[in-house]
C-alpha cells in the first residue's frame, strides 16, 4: 500500500511598518521589554484602536503579488479568547470578509541536480487576512514573563489550501513567500526574529483515495528547514501508524528539532468558541480600483519572473540565475552590467555570484557599501574579451578592484599585468616547449588531444601566466601540424 501526504500551511508574516497596526506605538524587534507600549498595546481602560494605512497597503501588495482577489469591502472582527500574551483578551482579525481571497504561490522544487531547475508548481491559497500580533511569553522554571513589545505588530495570515504533498513542497512554499515579500518590501520574513511563523496541518491517505485522512496540527516549526524536516518526519510517523493498523487522532503535535522527532502536545480539545463579532471600534475598509492599481504598480518584477527572464534573455544558466534572484539588489546590480554587454552576461553573472559574493562575505560587507559597481564588472569583462588579460588573471584583478575600487584598466596598468611580449615571442615559447617536452608531443601526435595541455602549461609558465591560453593552444596546434 502506497500512501501520500496532504499538507496545508498557515503562515503568519509580520508586515514591516514604522508603527503598529492599531496603535501609533513604534513597531520593532530587539527593544527593551515593554518599551514599545502605549495604552492600546497594553490594553488599558479607555484605549481605542486606529488602523494603520501602511499595513493595508502592505497586505494588498502581498495579495496582488500572490494573485488573490481583493474585494471592494472588508471589515474587522474580534476573536475572543483569554491568554496572557493578549492585551485585550481578544484579537482584532478578519473572520468572514478577509481582505485577500484565493490566490496562489508559485514554488520551485529541487531539480535532478543542482545545475538543473526543478519543477514549478502553483500552490493554491484559501485567503490572506490581517490581524494584530500578540505579546511574547518567556518561560522560566517557576513562572512565565510577558513582554508586549510584539503585541499589535501587523500580521498577515496566509492560509493555503491542503495543496502540498511533501516537506519539499512546504519548503518551496515558504521560500517563495519569503522571497516575494522581500522583493515587495512588505516583510523580511526572518523566522529567527518571529517575522514569519508557520504551522502545518498534515494527514496521509492511500494513493488514489480522494477523501482526506485524519489530520494533526504541527507547531514549533522554527525555521524553513525545520518545516521541511518536521513534515517529513510526521508523514513517515503517520504512515507507520496506519500500517500498524492504528488510526490518527486529531491532535496538536510539536516538532522537536533537537531530537529530530514530533511529540504530542495536546489531544484535540473542543473547538474554541471565539465568539466572533464585528469590532465596534473600527470602521469598514472600502477598496477601489484606484487603490488596487496604485499598489499593483508598486509591485516589482517578482523572483520567478526575473529568474525565467534572466535564463531566457541572457542565456544565464540556472546555477547563476538561482543565486542572483533571491537577492533583488544583487540581481539589479547584475543586470545593470549585463544589459550593457548581454553577450557576456554569463561571465558577468559568474563574477557576481562567485567572486563578488565571496569577497563581500569575507569582508563582512553589504552590497550597498561595496566599491565594485556594475561599471567595474564591465571593465573587467571587456579586458578579458579583448585579450588584454586572461580569465585567470582577471580573478586577481577582481580582488584588487574590490579593495581599491579602481577600474580594471587602471589596475592592469598599475600592476603591469598586460602581456609585455608580442605574438612572435609566444611562437618562440611554443617552439621551446615543443622542443623541451618530446613525450607530450608524441602523445599528441598519436591522437591524445589532451596531451597538449602539458605543453600549454609550459608556455603559460614561461609567460608568467600572461599569455592567452586560447591563442597559445592555436599556435601549438599550428606548429605541431
Amino acid at each position, binding site marked *: 500500500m502506497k500512501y501520500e501526504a496532504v499538507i496545508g500551511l498557515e503562515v503568519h508574516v509580520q508586515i514591516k511598518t514604522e508603527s503598529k497596526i492599531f496603535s501609533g506605538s513604534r513597531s520593532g524587534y530587539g527593544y527593551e521589554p515593554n518599551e514599545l507600549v502605549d*495604552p492600546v498595546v*497594553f*490594553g*488599558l*481602560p*479607555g*484605549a*481605542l*484602536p*486606529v*488602523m494603520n494605512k501602511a499595513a493595508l497597503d502592505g497586505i494588498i501588495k502581498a495579495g496582488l503579488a500572490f494573485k488573490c482577489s481583493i474585494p471592494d469591502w472588508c471589515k474587522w472582527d*474580534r476573536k*475572543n479568547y*483569554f*491568554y*496572557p500574551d493578549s*492585551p*485585550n*483578551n*481578544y484579537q482584532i482579525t478578519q473572520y468572514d470578509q478577509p481582505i485577500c481571497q484565493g490566490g496562489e504561490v508559485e514554488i520551485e522544487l529541487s531539480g535532478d541536480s543542482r545545475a538543473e531547475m526543478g519543477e514549478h508548481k502553483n500552490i493554491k491559497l484559501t485567503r490572506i487576512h490581517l490581524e494584530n500580533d500578540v505579546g511574547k511569553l518567556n518561560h522560566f522554571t517557576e513562572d512565565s514573563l*510577558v513582554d508586549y513589545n510584539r503585541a499589535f505588530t501587523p500580521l498577515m495570515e496566509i492560509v493555503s489550501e491542503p495543496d502540498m504533498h511533501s516537506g519539499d513542497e512546504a519548503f518551496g512554499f515558504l521560500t517563495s513567500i519569503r522571497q516575494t515579500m522581500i522583493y515587495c518590501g512588505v516583510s523580511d520574513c526572518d523566522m529567527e526574529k518571529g517575522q514569519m511563523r508557520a504551522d502545518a496541518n498534515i494527514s496521509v491517505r492511500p494513493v488514489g483515495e480522494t477523501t482526506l485522512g485524519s489530520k494533526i496540527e504541527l507547531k514549533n516549526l522554527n525555521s524553513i528547514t525545520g518545516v521541511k524536516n518536521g513534515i517529513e518526519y510526521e508523514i513517515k510517523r503517520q504512515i507507520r501508524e496506519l500500517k500498524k493498523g492504528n488510526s490518527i487522532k486529531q491532535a496538536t503535535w510539536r516538532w522537536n528539532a533537537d531530537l529530530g522527532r514530533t511529540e504530542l502536545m495536546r489531544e484535540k480539545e473542543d473547538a474554541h*468558541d471565539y*465568539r*466572533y*463579532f464585528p469590532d*465596534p*471600534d*473600527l*470602521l469598514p475598509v472600502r477598496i477601489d480600483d484606484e487603490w488596487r492599481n496604485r499598489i499593483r504598480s508598486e509591485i516589482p518584477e517578482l523572483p520567478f519572473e526575473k529568474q525565467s527572464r534572466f535564463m531566457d534573455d541572457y542565456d544565464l544558466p540556472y546555477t547563476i540565475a538561482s543565486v542572483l534572484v533571491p537577492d533583488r539588489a544583487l540581481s539589479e546590480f547584475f543586470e545593470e552590467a549585463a544589459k550593457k554587454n548581454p553577450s557576456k552576461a554569463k561571465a558577468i553573472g559568474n563574477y557576481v555570484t562567485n567572486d563578488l559574493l565571496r569577497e563581500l562575505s569575507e569582508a563582512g560587507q553589504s552590497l550597498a557599501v561595496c566599491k565594485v559597481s556594475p561599471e567595474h564588472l564591465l571593465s573587467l569583462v571587456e579586458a578579458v574579451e579583448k585579450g588584454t588579460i586572461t580569465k585567470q588573471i582577471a580573478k586577481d584583478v577582481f580582488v584588487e578592484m574590490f579593495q581599491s575600487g579602481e577600474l580594471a584598466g587602471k589596475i592592469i596598468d598599475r600592476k603591469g599585468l598586460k602581456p609585455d611580449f608580442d605574438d612572435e615571442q609566444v611562437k618562440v615559447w611554443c617552439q621551446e616547449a615543443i622542443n623541451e617536452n618530446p613525450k607530450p608531443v608524441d602523445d599528441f601526435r598519436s591522437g591524445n588531444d589532451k596531451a597538449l595541455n602539458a605543453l600549454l602549461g609550459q608556455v603559460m609558465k614561461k609567460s608568467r601566466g600572461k599569455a592567452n591560453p586560447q591563442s597559445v593552444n592555436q599556435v601549438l596546434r599550428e606548429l605541431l601540424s
Partner: protein
Amino acid sequence: MGDELHFKSAGELSDLLSSGSVSSVEIVKAFINRVEAVDNSVKAFNSYDAEDALAQAKVSDERRVKGETLSELDGIPVGLKDNLAVKDQPLTCSSKILESFISPYDGTCIQKLKAKGAVLWGRLNMDEFAMGSSTENSGTHTTSNPWDLERIPGGSSGGSAAAVAACEAPVALGSDTGGSIRQPASHCGVVGLKPTYGRVSRFGLAAFASSLDQIGPIARNIDDAALLLNAISGYDSHDSTSIDIAVPDFRKAAADVSDRKWTIGLPKEYFEESSDPEAIMPVLDAIEFYKSQGFEFKNISLPRTEYAVASYYIIATAEASSNLARYDGIRYTSRAEDFDGKDSIDVYRQSRALGFGEEVKRRVILGTYVLSSGYYDAYYLKAQKCRTLIRSDFENAFESVDAIMTPTSPTPATLKGAHAEDPLAMYLSDIYTISANLAGIPGLSLPCGYVDGLPVGLQILGKPFKEEEIFRVGRIFEKAHAFKDEYPEL
C-alpha cells in the same frame, strides 16, 4: 439658596473670574468645603484630591494674572465620573478589580479640559463599569439622591448627577450608554445631555458598550451644559468612531432667541404605556407650556420601541463581555492571591470572581452567551437588525418633526433596594432612554417639575448632530421656570 460660591453656575463663576471678583482658588475652596459638609450624606465621590485641585486653581489664577487665560472654563472645577482616564489619578470605574489602578494617561476629553484650563475635580461614583440605573451596583458604595437620601440618584452616572445637584461641583462629566446621563439627571433635578454618537471622543472612557457609549455634560442649566459640550466635542484621531463634523458654538446657539416655528413629535409608545400617569404629570405640564409658546405638537409613532430594551441588552452585554475581558488580573488589575493557581486560567477566574460585582458578572455572562457558538444569528445579528429598524423609526419621524419629547424616566427616583432581586425590572425602567443610544441620536434631560417632592425630567431627543437645537428648545422652557435655581436642602 444662599450667595455662596458653590451655589453658582459655571457661567456665573466664569463671569466672576473674568471680572476679578473672585479667584479660582476661592472657588475651589468653596467646593471643597461643600463636599466636606455634605458628602457624608450624599456620598457622590469615590475620591477627591483637594490639594491637587487647589494646585490647579493656583495655576489658573497665575495664568489670569498674566493675561493668559485659556478659556471661559479656566479655573472652574469640573467633576469627573470615575471611568474617565486622568493621568496619575485613580480610574476605578467603581470596581474592586480597579480599586488600586492609577491611570498612566489622559483621555482626549480630559486633554481638552486641561487645554481649556478647567480644574479637574474628583472621581465620582457610578454603577460598576457603568452597568446599572441606580449607582447601587457600585463596587465602592451607594450614592444617595440629594432630594431624598433614602432614594437612588439614578445611574450609572449617579455620582456626577448627585454632585451637581448637591452643589459639590458646578458641572460634571458623565457617560451615557442606555440613559446613564439623562436618567440620573432627571432623578436629581439637573440637566444632562447625551451627545450624538461620535460627537465626543471615547478615547479615555473605559468602554462598556463601544457602539453606544458617549461622554456628556451634567450641569445645573443649559448654558453650562453647552459650555462643557463646547469644550469636549470634536473629531479625534485616536477614536475611529468619532465623526469629523464641524462643532458649532453650542453656548451661542443655546442662547439664540430668534423666532422659529418648532414642530415636536410625541411618540405614542412613550405615553400610552405609562403605568403611572401621575409620575409623569410634570412632563405633560411642560408640553402644555410649549403649546402655549406656539410649539406645534404631532402625534408620531416609533413602532419598534417595544423591542429596544431587548436589542439593547443583547448588543450592550455582548460588546461589554468583550470590552471587560481585559480586566483579568494580569497586567494592571487586582490579582487574586491566596489560592492554588496552577495556570493563568485560574488567575482570570478568581480575579474576576473577586473583582467583579453581581451585575457585571450577570451582564458579562449574558453577553458571552449571546455571542457564543450557534447563537450569534439568533441574538446579536438579530438585535443589530432590530437596531436598524429602530433608527429608521426615528429617521421617519424626523422628516416631519424637529425634535421629540418624552418623559426621561417612567417614575421618579425609587427607594434604594427597590429592584434588588429583579434585574429585568431594572432593565425595563430604561425604556425611554435606550432608543436614543441605539439610534445614535442626541438627547437632553431637563428638570420640569416634581412629583411628591422628587424631580422629574423632560427628555428632548434631536436629529443627529443637532444638539444646538435641543438646547434651544430646552432653553425656552428653562427661562420661564425656576427649576434650575432650586436645590435640595442638605
